[in-house]
């Protein structure tokens, strides 16, 4: 008798909280915020190039680079999120960070200090952002590779910077994918919008 009540209550509450509730939220989300509900997907020329919220790999000098990623085998695997989980006294951490610092200095001549976020893996492996310092450091390289003046690139960086919420919560950051897309949309001689 008691067991039967427990089983019935399990089924009833599963239907309510496990089926009706998520389906209702999905329907309401689709009606109210369709773009976000679908994953904030960004298209270019009709094809999906990524999500505004999800970082991706960049290697060419003409693109800003994101943070090192431990997601999947090649980084930025958005079906396999995760961090490095290297402990603070693990030799492998020191070796990896030292190699990345070296690489940043090689590809960005004239670098004085290397911001920590640019040489450490994010928690998700999909961090879409880098710090303002990490973006500034790459401006000369990107400008040179594209034949643009640094001010033009700097203005685009500022335009793709997310501020703190209410000026208080979180940290400012530069969305790397959106910045690179904006760079690609820039025709030679163009000035970024708003300037």
């Amino acid at each position, binding site marked *: 008798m008691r067991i039967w009540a427990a089983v*019935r209550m399990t089924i009833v509450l599963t239907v309510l909280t496990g089926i009706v509730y998520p389906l209702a939220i999905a329907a309401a989300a689709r009606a109210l915020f369709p773009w976000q509900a679908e*994953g*904030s997907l960004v298209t270019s020329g009709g094809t999906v190039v990524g999500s505004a919220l999800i970082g*991706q790999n960049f290697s060419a000098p003409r693109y800003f680079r994101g943070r090192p990623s431990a997601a999947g085998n090649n980084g930025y695997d958005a079906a396999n999120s995760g961090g490095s989980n290297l402990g603070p006294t693990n030799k492998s*951490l020191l070796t990896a*960070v030292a190699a990345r610092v070296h690489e940043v200095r090689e590809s960005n001549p004239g670098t004085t200090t290397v911001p920590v976020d640019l040489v450490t893996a994010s928690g998700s492996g999909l961090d879409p952002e880098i710090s303002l310092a990490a973006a500034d450091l790459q401006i000369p390289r990107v400008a040179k590779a594209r034949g643009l003046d640094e001010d033009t690139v700097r203005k685009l960086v500022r335009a793709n910077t997310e501020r703190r919420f209410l000026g208080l919560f979180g940290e400012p950051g530069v969305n790397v994918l959106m910045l690179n897309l904006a760079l690609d949309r820039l025709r030679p001689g163009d000035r970024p919008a708003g300037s």
Partner: protein
Amino acid sequence: MLANAIIQIGLFIALVTAISVPLGHYMARVFANEKTFLDPLLKPVERLIYRLGGVHPENEQTWVEYAVAMLLFSAAGMLLLYGLERLQGWLPLNPQALGAVAPDLAFNTAASFTTNTNWQAYGGESTMSYLTQMAGLAFHNFVSAAAGIAIAIAMIRGFVRRNAKTIGNFWFDLTRATLWILLPICVVMALALVWQGVPDNFAPYVRAKTIEGAVQTIAEGPVASQEIIKELGTNGGGFFNANSAHPYENPTPLTNLIEMLAIFAIGAGLTHTFGKMVGDPRQGWALYGVMTILFLMGVAVCTWSEQRGNPMLARAGANEVASAMQSGGNMEGKEVRFGIVDSALFATVTTDTSCGAVNSMHDSYTPLGGLIPLLNMQIGEIIFGGVGSGLYGMLVMAVLAVFIAGLMVGRTPEYLGKKIEGREMKLAMLFILIFPLVILIPASLAVVLPAGLAGISNPGPHGFSQILYAYTSASANNGSAFAGLNANTPFYNVTLALVMLCGRFLMKIPALALAGSLAAKKSVPESAGTFPTNGAIFVILLIGVILIVAALTFFPADALGPIVEQLAMRHGHLY
């Protein structure tokens, strides 16, 4: 930097206070079956649930009947989830055609979600179908939280009732917690999360062609509906492997704030529910004060240690100094949008409670920064705590505190008009001792058995910390991890599942027995010799008792892990 940290943390606790007082009073009305503004909408649903479930909410239960109903309900839900995991390959809403979950992992996950732990030895996006996520996992997020609230309410009734045999009806408490508290908040806040960018769909994973020409497969799913109950119910099981560090689970500083507030809301609110139900709001405020002080101590140390950074990273040439251009600090395993302060705050909040969601990888914290989450769990997650379990855990500590005060003055201790006698003290001590037993014994087995040692991913003392953290998290029903530990092995899946079940049910039973024992007592009138439990002296005494119990129990273990590693790190020693 320091100013921003103080303002953020100060504003956060102010918001928690502002939310928890009205929420606590509302919850008191819900469980007293008084009128609320949601009644016209929810009363018909409530009646339907009782009819379909075949239960009679007006039948009062003794503590034994209450416990049996809770245990049978948990067992049925655990079996259902195990079945869903094993059969998901043949069931709908599985666009990625994910196959059956292996038996040991399915058992571990079923135990994990049934016990409100949400320890995850798997990556969500690569293991669980959409149906398993919603009907299996999100269902448990609701009902395990509702069951926790139910037991807290039953325990409060134990203090309030006099010469009573019964402590309420489990089905009534469970249903009302789900319908009046969890669901309405989830509906509103899930949509707020979607607005900020959390997806909610049933689409197959998106194949994006990146601008450098590679293919990026982006996992999707009904994330928002599950995300909010994960926090509100202090469950913590991520839709994705990276949990709340994943930009789809937690895209902005605003979603981060919402999620942290959701984690604390009910646990904090229940202290005021308690104050209201026992007829003295100051009794609730005293517990709230104890929790707030312990919270602030933890978050201060964690933020300081993470902002100070890892000297190894500086040695490798990384600049960890905070400025207007970067958050600096130990950014390994952290997200730029959260920086140091919001990561350390989240880590403290999620382990003060039994949540265990993470927005940064605790395994990569500095040793001292990682000690705070560990210590928060070892204290027993009574700093606001798991929904329900935090309050009944704190009430057990309060019973111990008045007992110690009674010994000091040579009087029979009382709490809220109830004499605390031999039987109550035995049950309280059972509750307090079961917890470290099911952490330390299995953890010490794991460090001597090859199957346990095989899971370690970081050498040196950090490897021991990984194992200690895992069993602490399982016993405390937290679910966060030093996630480098390779825990998806039969050894860890089975031992951790058993620890989670013991940590939940072996502790709930003495809690309910204590409630039953208290309800049966008569009330003694307050006299000049009664030790007041609603003032500053009691707050200080209770904090002292909590810290001393945790330190006596866990200091030797912690010294071998995080504490020795901190010393090693400061001296430049690597492993």
